[in-house]
């Protein structure tokens, strides 16, 4: 199974132009609210008609739906150029709404069976029974949606979608309405379910943790455009744009001037931080040109005063003062100022585990040494 599309849509003060090509993977479409995530799903499923573009579902990679219900080759379900527009009901796209959209006048079983057509009773019972088991809905078969918990509703909705043997699965912020603990558990469930039914899946989220946990590949969307589509490691550690860096929680993003190139390294000058070394990025780089560079706050080690400086930490060693600390439950964020850039300089944010924070007696006003380890610094051209 596969999915390939390119859709364009103009709305008041917003334009969307998104194209992606997927295999039978679980892909996360990640971006801030209003970036066009849900709109993209709606255009793939046919709920919203694109102004321009195409949607291909299938691609002939695998053997049809979850229940072996056909699925020969790729199908073009939308194409503005040739006027193809397959109605929603014939696209076989599984769609999970943010609030699940369970039919309130039907029981769990009736909801799950709703989309299954033309099966003899025995086979129907078999399939529905299997889904009830996989989704851990035993004992709830006769309940109405109003009598279910959030997690049970979500699993019922997922079962209802899977029952129709969809060729792609579109999940619109499926965990946003759930409590933290339930969310944790259901994310794990979803991974398992995707293993059982390896259907091309797009999961939309604005939750960073969720994106990292679930996406083999992540597409970062902003203002209707894909800014980066790559493996999750690339998105997290090698962001292609400042926006991506910002969205994935790279809280240290600076601008600097290229002071020189030294073999595999580039030396960058920043008024607050001074000179630092970073791995040289691919692409053209000239001395004197302006670049952005970034480092994740949890990748910056604090260097204890008594530690001898080996080659690893001697490079990019920064000395400064803690100007602020904020606790976040399991970690503390330190705001460090070098004092070089004056009052306007952006502080370096360093995230340390609580035990380190306590052990080193870190506090506001204390001097500190940190290392912007060369291999953790990433240059954005």
């Amino acid at each position, binding site marked *: 199974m596969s999915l390939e599309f390119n859709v364009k849509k103009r709305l008041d003060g917003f334009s969307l132009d998104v194209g992606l090509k997927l295999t039978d993977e679980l892909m996360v479409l990640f971006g801030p609210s209003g970036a066009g995530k849900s709109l993209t799903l709606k255009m793939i*499923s046919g*709920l919203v008609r694109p102004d321009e573009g195409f949607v291909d579902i299938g691609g002939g990679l695998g053997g049809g739906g979850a229940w072996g219900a056909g699925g020969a080759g790729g199908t073009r379900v939308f194409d503005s150029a040739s006027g193809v527009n397959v*109605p*929603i*009901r*014939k*696209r*076989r*796209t*599984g*769609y999970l*709404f943010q*609030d699940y*959209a369970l*039919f*309130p*006048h039907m029981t769990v079983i009736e909801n799950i069976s*709703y*989309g299954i*057509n033309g099966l003899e009773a025995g086979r129907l019972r078999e399939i529905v029974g299997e889904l009830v088991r996989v989704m851990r809905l035993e004992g709830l078969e006769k309940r109405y949606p*109003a009598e279910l918990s959030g997690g049970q509703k979500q699993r019922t909705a997922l079962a*209802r*979608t899977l029952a*129709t043997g969809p060729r792609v699965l579109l999940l619109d912020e499926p965990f946003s309405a759930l409590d933290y603990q339930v969310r944790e558990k259901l994310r794990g469930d979803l991974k398992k379910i995707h293993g059982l039914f390896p259907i091309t899946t797009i999961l939309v989220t604005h939750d960073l943790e969720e994106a990292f946990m679930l996406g083999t590949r992540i597409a970062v969307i902003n203002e209707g455009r894909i800014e980066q589509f790559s493996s999750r490691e690339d998105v997290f550690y090698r962001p292609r744009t400042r926006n991506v860096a910002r969205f994935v929680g790279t809280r240290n993003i600076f601008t600097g001037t290229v002071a020189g190139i030294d073999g595999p390294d580039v030396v960058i000058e920043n008024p607050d931080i001074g000179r630092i070394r970073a791995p040289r990025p691919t692409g053209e780089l000239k001395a004197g040109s302006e670049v952005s560079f970034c480092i994740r706050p949890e990748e910056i080690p604090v260097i204890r005063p008594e530690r001898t400086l080996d080659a690893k930490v001697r490079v990019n060693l920064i000395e400064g003062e803690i100007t602020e600390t904020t606790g976040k439950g399991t970690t503390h964020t330190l705001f460090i100022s070098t004092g070089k850039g004056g009052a306007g300089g952006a502080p370096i944010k360093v995230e340390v585990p609580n035990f380190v924070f306590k052990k080193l007696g870190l506090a506001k006003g204390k001097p500190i040494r940190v290392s912007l380890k060369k291999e953790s610094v990433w240059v954005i051209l």
Partner: protein
Amino acid sequence: MELFPLYLTIKVSLTATVFAAAIGIVVALVMARRDFFGKNAVDALIMQPLVIPPTVLGYYLLTVFGRSSFLGRFLEDSLGVEIVFTWRGAVVAALVSSLPLFIKPARAAIEGVGKDLEDAARLLGKTEFQVLRTVTLPLAWRGIVAGGVMAFARATGEFGATLMVAGSIPGRTMTLPIAIYDAVQMGDNLTANILVLIITVFSFSVLYLVGLFTRGRF
């Protein structure tokens, strides 16, 4: 006492309600789910019978269905259907004045069915008709039934427009409200009291039952 007015009123009101439901569901669906140019004007037009004087409404209907109009002549000459000064005239008057009372709750109920639910049904492979039959109408049925009951109640009480279109021919077009008027005019207080009691008990029961009914689970 003559019981014909009671029988006629029930017959006229039931017929009017059936037509009101058939027309009203379609109108309510369109008004609830489609956007089109002039929707507000159409809405104002549909709701007119609630606000214009019944005599004005009756006059309009006379003009549209009378022998001198194209429609009236067509119905009479080609189909052999006479409207004015027959019990059918009373049905038309009752239908037009009760239609808005059906459409209002029916439309609200259909609008109350989330669009996501209908979309979910489409995504699960259902045709528009199947969506209507299995999702929209089952979820909106309380509002639709409430609309039907309101329409029926309104039809039984219709006076002004009915008098204009159907007249008050005893034994042919004299409905219950007109019979009450007639009885009072004639000084027949006993008949008037009995008929008034019947209407009052009926109207109260209808509103009470609608209230019970529309306190729904969904």
